[in-house]
């Protein structure tokens, strides 16, 4: 009975309260926070890391491991979500730096990866092809712009929250979003019946 009550109490806590409980070793708080963010953070890593599922899982693991190992790194007086995304964004940026150094980044290989894992080429529809091209092009644009785009249109974050995550001004977020949209429209023009 006490356990059920505690579980209910934990599930109604906000992210910042959960982080405070995690600092004290509350496993249920960690479970609730994981359930809230697991899917969206996996999606973020998956799309940012060229749709590589294995790598996205590793990054998801490492991201939550940071919370376990050093929960005090988060300032509980601030919002958790932008902080969490900024940690994830930094992880992706570091990975891109590593990939550049190693010269592993190969667009053709990555494109093939998307095709192999997401779509059966024999049964591809126009919608699937559009989606495939969209994420290919999204992976090619500026890191901050693609992050802002995913956060805004997949997760529904506000301009203010994105600005906090990327540590830039709200006006800059708007510019980046608009720029990303223009680039994507240009690249995906063939799918626009108006053209």
């Amino acid at each position, binding site marked *: 009975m006490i356990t059920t009550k505690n579980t209910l109490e934990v599930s109604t806590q906000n992210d910042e309260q959960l982080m405070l409980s995690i600092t004290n070793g509350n496993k249920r708080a960690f479970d609730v926070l994981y359930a809230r963010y697991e899917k969206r953070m996996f999606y973020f890593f998956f799309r940012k890391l060229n749709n590589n599922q294995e790598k996205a899982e590793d990054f998801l693991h490492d991201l939550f491991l940071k919370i376990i190992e050093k929960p005090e790194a988060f300032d509980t007086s601030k919002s958790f979500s932008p902080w969490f995304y900024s940690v994830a964004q930094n992880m992706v940026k570091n990975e891109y730096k590593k990939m550049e150094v190693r010269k592993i980044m190969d667009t053709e290989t990555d494109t093939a990866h998307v095709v192999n894992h997401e779509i059966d080429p024999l049964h591809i529809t126009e919608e699937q092809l559009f*989606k495939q091209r969209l994420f290919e092009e999204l992976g090619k644009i500026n890191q901050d712009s693609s992050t802002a785009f995913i956060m805004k249109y997949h997760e529904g974050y506000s301009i203010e929250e994105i600005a906090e995550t990327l540590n830039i001004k709200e006006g800059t977020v708007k510019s980046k979003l*608009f720029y990303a949209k223009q680039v994507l429209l240009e690249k995906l023009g063939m799918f626009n019946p108006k053209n």
Partner: protein
Amino acid sequence: MDKNLDRYFELEEKVISNTINSIELEEWKTLNKGMMSNSRIEDTLRNDDVNASRLHVKMKLDAAFEEKFGSDNQYKDVHQNNVIPFPNKIRQLWAPPVNWAALASVAAVFVVFFMLRPGPSFEGNTVLLADSSLHYGTDTTIFKPDSILY
């Protein structure tokens, strides 16, 4: 440009929340002139999902959590007793592998037994404390320290 961008995202929010009026809708259409119809890019992102089982990730994280903080039950016990949660390693040092309740019960039985046992005979003591001359020769089994004087 900045002003246009502000207006663009302001109207976009209204479109998303379905609170846009007819005049604003016309303005929105003008701002979106030449852009992809029906917000296809945004809608594709909104409806996008990646289905994959990530149970193994959670299991590894659970193990890491337990390694650092101890098992869930340990936390629950400490928390429910309103004790300040110590790090697990320290708590383990303070948790000896004995059942304190059982030990206390055994100790209580011993204490009660000790208190209720028959005490030393008062009569016997009087023999030792009293003037031994009164008893001289009557009881040879009792030690009489002053009997050597006779």
